[in-house]
């Protein structure tokens, strides 16, 4: 049944004058609840693993399985967790993005599916996508067209292996974790180029080529902006970086890298910008620039193939958010000493969710750059200044170690 609102139009002037007196306008703080819910959704599985992992390991051992079997099962469990995080993140982030964009734009976003603020929207969308016809254009290069989404998503899943979900909480501890992540994150672009090439569509081709140029270029400042962090932490291991940020100056300023004067902030911003560019999001979304290239490289994809590209995109957003949290925002460390009783994975995911919000906030605020401006910005601004930043970090390190 529909509700009759009568003939009195609610102009923004009236709506904003008395927001809380209107029962149907209580959605303003939706996103706050969203962050909390996100922590629960993303963190829950991980947190459970954190608490129950040892017991599970012991249980497996007691079952009489050999050590090799236990190790294998353990790997599979962790793999399942990471995959679960990526898929759950896809569901959650799309809904959240739609909500954030809606509220930024003075509208509601999904409101029907599932009842409460359309929480089940993306779940139903996924079901729809699963049942959708998988269309391959006649002009497409069939095997490449089928392979492209897989090539895009596989490295994304693999890059999650050393990601910290809390202090000492990762699927795999790698000494060269940072390098590993950057290396795998760089592979996805091949899938994007394949998609653009194999679609047999000129717009897709342009999108794919733009993506190749953009992602490869932005790998550089992204890598270089982390170098100061690595210098201060003295390791490529994410766990070491995380631990290096524990503790407080003067008892209340967290020793997070983002609070290192100048160097920390510059690195943080550069890494953030380069991450936005890496994930092909506005203001750097030229590969899929909707108004120019229709949908860029994924114009000709439908159903699950298309949603794999989306999972990849949101997977990388999550990856970048976790990296930002681990590198600059103290990882699993609490912002104030008395909050240390809260488990580290809550802090970690909370910070990551906040960074994800920033990603979305950017997307719904800024226009898009042009290809050449994007390249100019990268090569003429980000790259030189990230070099300068490394130099400055060196000076600072020398002064600290003196």
């Amino acid at each position, binding site marked *: 049944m529909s509700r009759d609102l009568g003939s009195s139009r609610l102009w*923004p002037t009236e709506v904003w004058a008395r927001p809380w007196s209107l029962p149907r*306008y209580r959605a303003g703080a939706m996103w706050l609840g969203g962050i909390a819910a996100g922590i629960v959704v993303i963190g829950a599985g991980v947190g459970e693993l954190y608490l129950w992992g040892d017991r599970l390991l012991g249980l497996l051992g007691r079952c009489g399985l050999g050590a090799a079997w236990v190790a294998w099962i353990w790997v599979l469990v962790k793999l399942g967790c990471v995959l679960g995080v990526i898929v759950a993140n896809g569901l959650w982030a799309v809904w959240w993005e739609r909500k954030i964009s809606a509220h930024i734009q003075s*509208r509601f976003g999904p409101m029907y599916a599932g009842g409460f603020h359309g929480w089940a929207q993306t779940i139903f969308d996924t079901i729809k996508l699963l049942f959708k016809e998988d269309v391959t254009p006649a002009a497409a290069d069939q095997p490449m067209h089928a392979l492209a989404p897989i090539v895009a998503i596989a490295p994304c899943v693999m890059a999650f292996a050393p990601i910290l979900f809390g202090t000492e909480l990762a699927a795999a501890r790698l000494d060269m974790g940072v390098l590993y992540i950057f290396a795998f994150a760089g592979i996805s672009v091949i899938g994007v180029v394949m998609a653009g090439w194999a679609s047999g569509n000129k717009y897709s081709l342009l999108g794919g080529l733009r993506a190749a140029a953009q992602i490869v270029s932005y790998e550089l400042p992204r890598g270089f902006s982390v170098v100061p962090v690595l210098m201060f932490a003295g390791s490529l291991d994410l766990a070491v970086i995380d631990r290096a940020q524990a503790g407080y100056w003067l008892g209340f300023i967290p020793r997070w890298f983002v609070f290192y004067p100048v160097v920390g902030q510059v690195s943080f911003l550069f890494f953030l910008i380069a991450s936005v560019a890496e994930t092909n999001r506005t203001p750097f979304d030229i590969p899929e620039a909707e108004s120019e290239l229709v949908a860029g490289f994924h114009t000709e994809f439908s159903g699950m193939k298309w949603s794999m590209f989306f999972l990849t995109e949101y997977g990388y957003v999550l990856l970048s958010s976790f990296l930002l949290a681990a590198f600059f925002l103290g990882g699993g460390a609490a912002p104030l000493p008395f909050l240390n009783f809260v488990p580290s994975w809550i802090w970690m995911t909370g910070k990551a969710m906040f960074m994800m919000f920033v990603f979305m906030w950017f997307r719904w605020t800024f226009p898009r750059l042009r290809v050449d401006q994007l390249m100019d910005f990268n090569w003429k601004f980000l790259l030189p200044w990230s070099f300068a930043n490394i130099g400055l970090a060196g000076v600072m390190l020398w002064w600290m170690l003196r």
Partner: protein
Amino acid sequence: MISYFKTVFTSSWAFVQGLWITLRYMFKPAVTVQYPTEKLHPYPPFRGALLFDAAACIACGLCAKACPSSCIALAHQVNPETKKRVPKVEWYTLDLGRCNFCGLCQETCPTKPKSVWHSLDYEVVFSTRDEMVRCWKPGFPLGGRVWDPVAKDFREPRGHLPVSASPARK
């Protein structure tokens, strides 16, 4: 050199300002209406789907002449004995598929109250072309009926606001 840093700073500041605006709107309530579940009434002058009152009509044909898209057709009654024109409609049709919603028929209608007028019905949806043509004969309801070519009979149009939901005639 100074201007370079100034540019960097002013640009960054402009970004921050933009972010601040969008953040502020995020905490303001939404202004949209959830349409199918929440419905607004149009303002009284609204020009929605046309209604017709066969009882009030004097079959003068001014509305048909005023219509810029020839969507109105009518025939007046004829007295069978004297063969003279009776100021009553024999039949009256309105092709809503052609209608411009311009209001000229309503303006020219000389009767009081108007015998053809715009309702507030804005959910004018059809599934067939036959359904676009509203037909009236004396005794038909204000909303008219549509001709069903299969059943060879008139039936009520589907999926519209009930005529009772429309306001008093202008």
